């Protein structure tokens, strides 16, 4: 079993793929017009930036960005399933989002462990932040 690390070639490739896919679906949404699609595109671009930003806060909360991006993409897929149009570009965008979620799950499994435990740790009042 190969262990994935953020600085290994596989880790860098995985992260790059996540960023490219997030930007790709963001770009597709930006071409659809309307406020909702534009906001959706902005969200994807911000999430992509947060996935690679080298600033301390982004690094510290990258696990949360991963979860947030999964929730964001899943919401977009469910929203499209319920009300969205069925045509080629929509299918492409949803395909990208499904692959994006799969890659994010791989990262979460490799770097974060159980996301529920991570959330519980973050919300626990006895953490370093609570003591500060």
């Amino acid at each position, binding site marked *: 079993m190969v262990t994935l690390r953020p600085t290994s070639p596989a880790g860098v490739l995985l992260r790059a793929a996540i960023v490219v896919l997030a930007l790709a679906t963001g770009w597709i949404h930006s*071409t*659809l*017009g*309307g406020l909702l699609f534009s906001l959706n595109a902005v969200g994807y671009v911000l999430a992509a930036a947060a996935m690679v930003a080298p600033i301390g806060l982004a690094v510290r909360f990258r696990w949360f960005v991963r979860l947030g991006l999964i929730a964001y993409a899943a919401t977009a897929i469910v929203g499209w399933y319920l*009300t*969205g*149009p*069925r*045509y080629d*570009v*929509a299918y492409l965008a949803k395909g990208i989002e499904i692959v994006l979620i799969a890659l994010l799950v791989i990262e979460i499994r490799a770097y974060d462990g159980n996301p529920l435990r991570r959330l519980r740790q973050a919300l626990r009042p006895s953490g370093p932040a609570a003591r500060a």
Partner: protein
Amino acid sequence: MRAVRRSRGIFIAAVVAAVALSGCGSSAVPAQTPTGSGDPAGTWIAIAAGNIVFDQPAISVAANQPFTVVFENRDTVPHNVSIFVGETGGERRFEGAVFTGSATRWYAVPALAPGTYRFVCDVHPSMSGRLVAT
């Protein structure tokens, strides 16, 4: 190329007719039958989309008769025309192909029973209008 010119000509005629008929205030624009020998055959109506808005809030067609929607998408974003039963909710009666503008497509719509319908862009559900089949 000739087909494009012809469809443009028909569309311009449709727009001119629609503008002329729109002088009746907010009343529905009735379906029109082209006088020339070109397509579309039979009854047809013109609808255009620009700035993510349909150019007509209401249209009317003859009930129980298939008709053609000449749909011009003036935007560079994708639009289509779908027809649903009633003012809200309701079953879909027709789904036009989504396409990006600027372009014009003709939709062959099957006959509608008498009643009130709404035409909607599936990509932008805020784009909608009233369709009455009488």
